[in-house]
């Protein structure tokens, strides 16, 4: 009986240490990814590739924090669904706004005139 109790206590201690080390490892991974992102912007590679990699790395950091630090992986699925509803709505709004306002037609008229003058002066 006492050996079973002490074995259970040891298991708990190991599990606690494991969780501590897991959190520290995740924090180190997050720091390394941040360092990679900073180096990435100075590399002489095509812009679309840099943007894609930055988005991907940020997504990895995002998912690591919400699923491990925020315990979403270990909680009930409903919490994940609830949070992702807000996230999807936010993402959809961002995408819609960018689609509406990013074309050239969205440039303010006063700015268009100034850009045209500068382009003419540069020629």
């Amino acid at each position, binding site marked *: 009986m006492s050996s079973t109790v002490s074995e259970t206590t040891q298991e*708990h201690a190991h*599990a*606690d240490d494991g*969780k*501590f080390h897991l*959190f*520290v490892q*995740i*924090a180190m991974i*997050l*720091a390394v990814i*941040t*360092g990679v*992102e*900073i180096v*990435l*912007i*100075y590399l002489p590679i095509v*812009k679309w590739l*840099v*943007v894609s990699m*930055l*988005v991907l*790395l*940020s997504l990895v*950091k*995002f998912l690591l*924090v*919400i699923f*491990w*630090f*925020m*315990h979403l992986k*270990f*909680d*009930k699925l*409903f*919490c994940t669904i*609830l*949070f992702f*509803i*807000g*996230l999807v*709505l*936010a*993402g959809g*709004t*961002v995408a819609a*706004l*960018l689609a509406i*306002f*990013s074309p050239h037609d*969205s*440039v*303010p008229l006063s*700015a268009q005139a*100034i*850009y045209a003058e*500068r382009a003419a002066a540069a020629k």
Partner: protein
Amino acid sequence: MSAHAGTIDHHHDHTTTTGIPNKKLFMWAFLASDCMFFGALISTHVIYRLHPTPEGADPTKLFSIELTSFSTFILLMSSLLMALAVGASQKGKVEATRKMLLGTIFFGLIFLGCQVYEFTHFVHKGLTLKSDMFGSTFYTLTGTHGVHVAIGVLWLVLMYIRTFKPTDAGKAWVTRAVVQFMAFAVAVVSIMFVMLAVTHAGAEHGYTLSSVVHALQHDAITSGAALAFAVSTVLLFTLGRSTWAVDFGEANAIDVEGMGLYWHFVDIVWIVIFTVVYLLEYL
């Protein structure tokens, strides 16, 4: 994953319909709404950056990527300490919870200090809330995030003070806990002043013991800060020894967890802001 050393299952509540503790459910719903709030601010900033006004400021000439990288790293480490605080509270370890909460507060204050320093530098260079469109969207977005961090720090402080509530209701514990926290705040601020003075002296005269001593004696503010640091540190360690039984344990872990969810959310919003607002400007 259930609690290991305790008697409470921190991931299941039998009294609710969903099985999720109400406080946790509320916090996740609030964070989902906050996603939409920050989504609107971030998209506004991005849209106005796609078509910058001709007279607008050039962010790459203002930004210090080193300072922003440092503050990003600080916020990531504060997230780690917060996760450890939640873990400690779920095991009923009050002392460990206090230490991790203090660490999170410390790192949060450093982040806020970096933000204040950065904003002060930008204002000095002429970028204000109404100077141009970039200033408007930048300060609105990062300022809102900064306010979220400040509210988080305040909440952490209140949580820290709460850990000292004694089981004996007659004890005057609030004043002592507040004084202890004030000692911590004075220690943090004063060491920042001292380090700034030592760094300046080192840059001017070289990093030697005599230059450090000279820096500490250079003006009244630095000398006062060094003295304040020494006194507040002694006070902190003296008052931090709570010998009475406290009314804080595993049952309060849900409150620390709710706090943790908020703090981690603030961190992930900064992850997005750092990439979108700062890094993308350099492309």
